[in-house]
C-alpha cells in the first residue's frame, strides 16, 4: 500500500515537473504581454466577401510617400497598444530614411488616428486625397514580453507574425514589418521586416519599469534592422523594375530631370566597335 502511494506520489511529482518545463502558462501562473497590429487585418478585413484585383502599378516620379502604423488589432491585444510617442519616433526614422532618395519628393508621417481599424484600401484612398501621397509604407508590429515569475528559466516557442522566436523569462521579442503599397493599384511593391530580442534583466521589484524600457529598446533595435532590410529590398525592387518593366510602369511628373545617357552595356559595345572601326580606318589611311 505504502509503495503504491509512493509510486502515485512520484508520478504526480513528475507530471507537475513536466508541465513546469513545458512552459504552460496557464498552470504555472506565467504571463505574457502581447502588443500587435496587422496589415492583413487592416487591408483585408472582409477578404471572403471582396475579391481585390491588383492592377499594374504606375509610379510617377518623384514620389510622395506616406508612413503610417496600422491600428492595433481589436480585442484581447488592444489594451497593450504601442504609445503614440514611440510610434511617431519610429515613423520619423523611417521617413528620414526615405527622404534621402532623390526619387522621393516628400514623405508624410501620418498619425495612426487617421487610420480606422480594418479600414482597408478605402481608408488609404482617403489618406491619398488628404495628404497627396502616391505610395504608403504601412508599419505593423508584434511584440511579446514574457513575465514568468518562476524560479526556473522557462522555454517558450512563440509565433510572432511569420517568425518563430525563442523566448525566455522576461525576454522581449519584437518584429516590425514595413509593407510598401501603391495606393492606386492596391499592389504591394515590396516589404521588409525588422526583428529583435531583448534579454530580460528585470527583477520582481522593478519588473514593470524594466519591461517598459525593454519594450522601447526592442522596438528601437527592430527599427535599425528594419531600415537595413528596407534599403536592401528597395534595391531589389529597383533591379526588378529594370528586369521586368512590364510589372511596374514608371513615368515622370512635371519638374523631372533629364539625362543624356547610353547605359553601361551599350557604351561597352559602342566603344568596342568604334575602337575596331577606328583602327581599320586609320590603318587604311596610313597605307
Amino acid at each position, binding site marked *: 500500500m505504502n509503495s503504491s502511494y509512493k509510486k502515485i506520489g512520484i508520478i504526480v511529482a513528475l507530471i507537475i515537473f513536466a508541465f513546469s518545463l513545458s512552459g504552460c502558462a496557464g498552470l504555472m501562473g506565467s504571463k505574457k504581454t502581447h502588443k500587435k497590429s496587422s496589415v492583413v487585418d487592416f487591408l483585408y478585413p472582409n477578404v471572403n466577401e471582396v475579391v481585390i484585383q491588383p492592377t499594374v502599378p504606375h509610379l510617377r516620379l518623384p514620389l510622395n510617400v506616406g508612413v503610417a502604423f496600422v491600428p492595433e488589432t481589436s480585442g484581447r491585444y488592444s489594451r497593450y497598444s504601442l504609445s503614440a510617442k514611440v510610434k511617431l519616433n519610429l515613423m520619423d526614422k523611417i521617413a528620414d530614411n526615405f527622404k534621402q532618395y532623390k526619387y522621393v519628393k516628400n514623405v508624410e508621417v501620418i498619425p495612426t488616428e487617421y487610420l480606422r481599424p480594418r479600414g482597408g484600401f478605402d481608408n488609404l484612398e482617403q489618406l491619398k486625397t488628404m495628404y497627396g501621397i502616391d505610395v504608403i509604407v504601412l508599419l505593423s508590429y508584434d511584440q511579446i514580453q514574457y513575465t514568468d515569475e518562476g524560479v526556473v528559466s522557462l522555454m517558450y516557442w512563440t509565433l510572432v507574425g511569420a517568425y518563430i522566436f525563442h523566448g525566455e523569462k522576461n525576454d522581449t521579442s519584437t518584429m516590425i514589418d514595413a509593407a510598401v503599397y501603391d495606393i492606386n493599384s492596391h499592389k504591394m511593391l515590396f516589404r521588409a521586416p525588422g526583428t529583435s530580442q531583448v534579454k530580460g534583466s528585470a527583477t520582481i521589484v522593478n519588473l514593470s519599469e524594466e519591461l517598459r524600457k525593454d519594450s522601447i529598446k526592442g522596438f528601437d533595435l527592430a527599427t535599425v534592422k528594419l531600415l537595413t532590410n528596407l534599403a536592401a529590398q528597395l534595391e531589389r525592387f529597383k*533591379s526588378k523594375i529594370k528586369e521586368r518593366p512590364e510589372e511596374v510602369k514608371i513615368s515622370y511628373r512635371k519638374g523631372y530631370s533629364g*539625362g*543624356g545617357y547610353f547605359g553601361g552595356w*551599350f557604351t561597352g559595345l559602342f566603344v568596342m566597335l568604334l575602337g575596331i572601326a577606328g583602327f581599320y580606318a586609320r590603318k587604311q589611311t596610313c597605307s
Partner: protein
Amino acid sequence: MQENKHAHRHNFPILTLMLVVGSLLLFLLPDTANLLIYDRERIFSGEVWRLATGALVHFSWPHVVYNAVILLIAGSLLERDARLVFVALVLITSIASGLYFLFFLPDMTNYAGLSAINSALVIYLCLMNIRDTSISAWLWIMILILFIAKVTYEIVMQQAFFVSFTQGAIQVVPSAHIIGALTAVTLRAWDAIAELRIQHKN
C-alpha cells in the same frame, strides 16, 4: 565645312581631351556645375549659356564616365580627320538640343549629359566612313544599326534606365540622341553637296 580627310590630319585631339577633362572636372566641382547645368527657369531669367553648357554637366559617376569614354574615342577619331567638323558638331548639337528642350519639353526642368554630342560624333563618323571599301565599312554600318536600335528602344521603353543612375528620378531623353544624329546627318549632307559642287566645277 568640308575638310580634306587626309590633308589636314591633326595628330593630337586637344579639343576632345579638353571636353573630356572639363566634364570630369565639372563633376568634381558641383558648385561650378550648378552654374552651367541646363535649368529651364534660369534660362528664362537670362542665363542663356546654360542652353549649350548643360551637356558638360553630369548627374553621377557612371553617367560621366560612360559619356566621357565614348567622347574620347569618337571625338579623337573625328578631330584627327576633321577638326572644324568636330567643333561645328559640338556647338550646333549642344545649342540645338538646348533649344529643343526649352520649346518642346516644358516639363523637364534640368538636363545634363554629353550623349547628344556623342550621338552627333558617332553618326558623323559612320556617314563619313560608310563608303570605305574595307571591312571597316561594315563595322560603321553595324554601329549605325546599333544606334538606331538603341534610340528606338529608348523611345518605346521610356523608363528603362532611371535605375541605372545611382540615385534620382532622372529620365533618359531619347530626343537628345535624335537631335545629335540629325545634326550629323545635316552636316554630312552639307559636306556631300559641297563636295559634289567642287567635283562638278572641276
